[in-house]
């Protein structure tokens, strides 16, 4: 307020201010009410809807069983997907980095219009992103070690934002004062909070401390946050925070995955290097002709236990016969643990053998005894393996593989060079060649240099990948016995049970597969770009050549990506289970969604246009299955599709003159069944890949159609109601028939509904659980276990929550990808009026 204003002016202004203040107060009040109203739902949704996604991811990194609930890193994912895990993770980190780039890019575009220096915000953004990541990490793991760190980081980043904002403006003393004030407030709030929480007090004082802390921090926040809200360049701040968060997340994820991958592969590489060389290949070793034996328990002399025999407690050595009854076949040794109240045989002082219960061990402790097996008496000499066996080349190069770290660096260098070339191209296009000819020329030379570097690095990578593959194939060629012999020959001990040649081979292949799949994806992506650019070519020859290039790249990409199935096979039993469950889910989806959509559309169309009398009744009937409890209806299906000949489904079959079938217990595909039972051919003529969903799964599909057709019809009805009737009238006047009206008006105008329904149904089939869980039982086996049921079984029956969580995230990723792809397709196909 200025001093020179006249009284009337002052009055008016104060009125205005009053009004503005009132408006502002009301706005604040409104906002507070809004937050208050949303709060309960927000808390519940956050606690049980959103937070679980983050904490569930952490769960998936831990070993499942409640007893050994420890951090195992990516093991669960590797169990469920094999090396595909790493493909996904590197892809994910790439997506994060791209998201960060996009946030930055959008702010960059804004900068052109708004001015200001975006670069000032980078450091606070990075620090803030780091703070958020550390905060989430602390919350998820519940770690208390560095609980001050995230807050400190966030405060530093906040202060940084204030500084950056101030730097944008015209510098006046008032501005500096304001900045100093804000920084002091931030520092004060942070210090009070961090120090205050560390003071150890108890009782009422603790309550008082909390009140003081909250009051001080709340006051500081209430002063600082509105100031931040008045930032001119708030947009830069949020963009830089997003950029920092996503970039760091992407880099951390990539680094973590690389470290995990290296950890997995390193040991395999080392073993390969040591067991594949001419010395081992030519060595002759002595092997027992008989299996190893444990002749008896020969405990060390000092192994004396307290035993209760006939109410009397004595100390005596364990008798050699204690473990006679064990089958000694193929045992490399015996590891036994004794607990209290276990019945054992001991040597009595008089030399005889007595039996009694162990006592005197401390509570909950075990007595461990290790007895190596006796070496067999008869030995024979043999070669461990011949070079022919594992491949000459592996032996010749001595099982050598390039260290993974080097290959990572090479791959990183190649991709950075690629990005640099891309940037250079972009810059050169922007530059005016006549204005700065030297720079353009230099950039051209640099590009050439980078191209050469890429070629060299690529050759190196291909060579080392080939080495890894050779070693892996050699490893695969070994039998378990050969591997054990070689291992024992090199290391002088037996290999741990967990090390098996096929596991080592799979690990050796992790990186080659990752590399090839990544390369394939890159090639296909590049092919897509080339294909698009073909349209810009002017000559026919140029067009043809570009198309040819694109096709070749696609074929090449496809060939490299076709490593995928092999990856899954090598991933072991669990990865196979995952893959089968996913395939079953896909089959279920494909079998259900089109039929149910078509049926729903058909019902809705008839209900809408033809049925005049009893419309409500039909709707009620067709909709009933959807609303009925699925446990109840699935149970009825269980009865209808019973195995016996007298079940309703089999009676219907008999009515049509067909043989009864074993519905839910029938793992044969329906195409094969149709071919065998109706056409009368040999079912084995139909290849397994073409046999379609199994009859068991088909039964579930029938159930799904029955349930969802009515639901689809109701949604379609709403869509049909929204189509203006004038269109039909006009078409009728023009003489369009029923079919052409349906084809040319109804279908296109319904496409948003169709798209919505198809998306929902596909996701629904991927989430489907209840009815399948009711329809399955022991005898059904895994034949109808779709992904959701598979996950639930891992959680509930196998009690392996960590693994189940990992599988759930795999499912989540699949659903997300499907949604994105569908959205993409919809943009081209759906007509939104």
């Amino acid at each position: 307020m200025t001093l020179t204003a006249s009284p009337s002016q002052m009055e008016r202004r104060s009125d205005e201010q009053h009004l503005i203040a009132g408006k502002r107060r009301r706005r604040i009040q409104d906002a507070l009410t809004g937050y208050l109203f949303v709060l309960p739902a927000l808390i519940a949704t956050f606690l049980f809807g959103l937070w679980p996604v983050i904490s569930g991811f952490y769960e998936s990194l831990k070993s499942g069983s409640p007893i050994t609930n420890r951090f195992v890193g990516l093991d669960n994912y590797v169990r469920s997907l094999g090396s595909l895990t790493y493909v996904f993770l590197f892809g994910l980190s790439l997506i994060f980095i791209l998201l960060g780039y996009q946030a930055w890019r959008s702010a960059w575009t804004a900068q052109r219009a708004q001015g200001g220096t975006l670069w000032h915000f980078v450091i606070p953004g990075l620090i803030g992103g780091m703070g958020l990541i550390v905060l989430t990490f602390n919350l998820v793991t519940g770690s208390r070690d560095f609980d001050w760190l995230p807050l400190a980081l966030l405060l530093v980043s906040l202060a940084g934002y204030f500084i950056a904002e101030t730097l944008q403006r015209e510098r006046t003393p008032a501005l500096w004062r304001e900045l100093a004030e804000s920084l002091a407030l931030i520092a004060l709030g942070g210090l009070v909070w961090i120090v205050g929480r560390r003071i150890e007090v108890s009782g009422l004082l603790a309550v008082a401390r909390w009140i003081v802390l909250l009051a001080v921090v709340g006051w500081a926040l209430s002063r600082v946050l509105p100031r931040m809200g008045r930032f001119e360049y708030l947009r830069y701040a949020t963009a830089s925070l997003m950029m920092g968060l996503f970039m760091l997340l992407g880099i951390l994820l990539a680094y973590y995955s690389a470290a995990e991958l290296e950890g997995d592969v390193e040991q395999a590489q080392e073993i390969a290097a040591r067991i594949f060389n001419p010395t081992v290949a030519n060595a002759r070793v002595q092997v027992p002709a008989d299996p190893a034996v444990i002749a008896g328990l020969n405990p060390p002399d000092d192994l004396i236990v307290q035993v209760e025999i006939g109410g009397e407690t004595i100390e005596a050595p364990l008798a050699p016969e204690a473990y006679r009854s064990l089958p000694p076949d193929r045992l490399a040794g015996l590891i036994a643990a004794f607990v209290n109240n276990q019945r054992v045989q001991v040597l009595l002082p008089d030399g005889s053998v007595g039996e009694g219960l162990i006592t005197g061990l401390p509570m909950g402790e075990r007595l461990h005894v290790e007895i190596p097996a006796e070496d067999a008496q008869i030995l024979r000499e043999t070669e461990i393996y011949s070079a022919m066996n594992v491949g000459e080349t592996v032996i010749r190069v001595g099982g050598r593989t390039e260290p993974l770290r080097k290959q990572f660096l090479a791959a990183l260098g190649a991709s950075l060079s690629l990005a640099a070339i891309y940037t250079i191209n972009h810059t050169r296009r922007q530059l005016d060649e006549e204005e700065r000819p030297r720079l353009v020329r230099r950039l051209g030379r640099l590009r050439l240099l980078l191209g050469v570097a890429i070629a060299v690095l690529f050759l190196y990578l291909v060579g080392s990948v080939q080495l890894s593959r050779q070693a892996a194939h050699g490893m695969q060629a070994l039998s378990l016995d050969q591997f054990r012999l070689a291992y024992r020959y090199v290391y002088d001990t037996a290999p741990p049970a967990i090390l098996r040649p096929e596991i080592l081979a799979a690990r050796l292949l992790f990186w080659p597969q990752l590399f090839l799949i990544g390369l394939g994806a890159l090639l296909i992506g590049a092919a897509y770009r080339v294909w698009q650019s073909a349209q810009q070519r002017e000559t026919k020859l140029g067009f043809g050549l570009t198309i040819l290039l694109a096709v070749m790249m696609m074929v090449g990409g496809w060939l490299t990506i076709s490593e995928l199935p092999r990856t899954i096979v090598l991933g072991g039993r669990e990865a196979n289970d995952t893959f089968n469950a996913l395939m079953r889910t896909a089959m279920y989806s494909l079998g259900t969604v089109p039929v149910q959509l078509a049926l729903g559309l058909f019902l809705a169309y008839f209900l809408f246009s033809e049925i005049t009398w009893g419309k409500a009744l039909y709707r009620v009937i067709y909709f009933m299955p959807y609303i009925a409890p699925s446990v109840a209806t699935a149970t009825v299906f269980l009865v209808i599709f019973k195995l016996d000949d007298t079940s309703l489904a089999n009676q219907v079959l008999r009515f049509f003159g067909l043989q009864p079938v074993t519905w839910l217990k029938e793992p044969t595909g329906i195409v094969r069944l149709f071919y065998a039972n109706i056409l009368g051919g040999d079912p084995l003529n139909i290849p397994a890949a073409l046999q379609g969903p199994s009859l068991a799964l088909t039964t579930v599909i029938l159930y799904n159609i029955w349930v969802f057709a009515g639901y689809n019809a109701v949604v379609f009805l709403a869509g049909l109601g929204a189509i203006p009737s004038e269109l039909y009238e006009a078409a009728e006047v023009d003489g369009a028939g029923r079919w052409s009206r349906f084809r040319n008006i109804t279908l296109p105008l319904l496409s948003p509904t169709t798209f919505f329904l198809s998306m929902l149904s596909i996701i629904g089939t991927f989430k489907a659980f209840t009815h399948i869980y009711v329809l399955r039982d022991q005898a059904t086996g895994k034949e109808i276990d779709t992904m959701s049921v598979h996950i639930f079984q891992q959680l509930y029956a196998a009690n392996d929550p960590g693994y189940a969580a990992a599988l759930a995230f795999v499912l989540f990723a699949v659903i997300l990808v499907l949604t994105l792809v569908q959205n993409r397709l919809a943009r081209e196909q759906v007509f939104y009026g």
Partner: protein
Amino acid sequence: MASTTTPTTRAQSGSAPVARAQTLIPRRRPIVIKPFRIVVYVVMTLGAIVFVLPFFWMVTTSLQSQGDITRGRMFPSNRILTVTEVTETELQRTLQDLLDSGEFPGYLSAVRGQIESSNRQRALTVDAYLRTQRYGYAEVRIRNDIPGLKNVWPFDKRYVVVGGLAHYVEAWDESNFSRYFFNSVQIAALTIIGQTATSVLAAYAFARIEFPGRNFLFSLFLATIFIPTMVVLIPNRKMVTQFHNFFTADFPAKQDAWGITDARRAIAEPIYRLIDAAGLENFLGLGDAFTVDGPIVWPWMDNWPALVVPFLASTFSIFLLRQFFMQIPEDLWDAARIDGAGHLRYLFMIVLPISRAAVVTTILFTFIGTWNALEWPILVTFTDRWRPISYGLYAFKTEAGSDLNLLMAGSVITLVPVLVVYLFAQRQFTEGIATTGLKG
């Protein structure tokens, strides 16, 4: 109301031609029988029969005897219901006695010849005989346990139910479906109360109140739709277990230190006396929350909180209610504001009465969602005490084995409340589905 649900209502009532009729000369349309229409009717009716068939099969199987089921019959061959009052002594009489005295009860006279022809059966008591029979048999005891009334009107009677409906009595009484049923009713009631409260408030805020970050928060809510249940199932179980551990172990240990015990002694004891007098002491599974002996222990697992608390907010309900609230004209709010009403008052006095239909719809969907839930109850209930009916039926599926009639009777018991609710409010259901395309 009519303007709010345009697409569906038009689709339902078939009022599309009405608009056209107004522009033409109003006259009654002659009924034209088109062959295509007849075909459509026939097809639709056949389809409807196929769609109803499983429900029909459920009911008919539940009424059939084992013999009928193995023979694969369509309808029950025996009677469906005979209810006869009997005494304990009558049940224990042997059939030989009845033959001798010639006083066969009505429900046995139909099989008299069978008994007369077989010596082995004659030696059986009525009770044992009925149990060996292929058709349904159940005992119902009706007893008056109400304290005051008991003295005035002592009542203790025993009936036998013979025929198909006996399976329902057996499922209800002996297979614990009554327990499951009322568990589900209680869980649904609690969930509905909580969810409706949170959803109405949140939906109103999202529809009417301007506050910074509104769109962001709303998209956060919507994001939960895309998260598969399986992802949240595992961490949620862990979280509920943590709550359980806190309220059964950590919290009881600290109550003395926090002064809660003293406070309870002062405040809760009088209340407890009242509650005790009303006979409600364990109504909400709070255990001994109001008694002062020992600390408050509030188990979550295998208790109602585990089944209710995770469902206290529903994106579906919020979305549906918000859609509805947004269609209420702005003028109403302005008028209310001029009259001095705040948000809360406006919400309760004007918005809620207008949108009763939408609220009812969300309640119905919540009810059905709770009634149908299976995977979550499997994870958090271990005993029959709080097992809801879907899980009860699922567990019974493995127990019942070959007693398909009992299993189907259980299914019908599970189905009936939902169907009743649906038939009474089917319009709300279809509108709700058409608005959001989702089930609760």
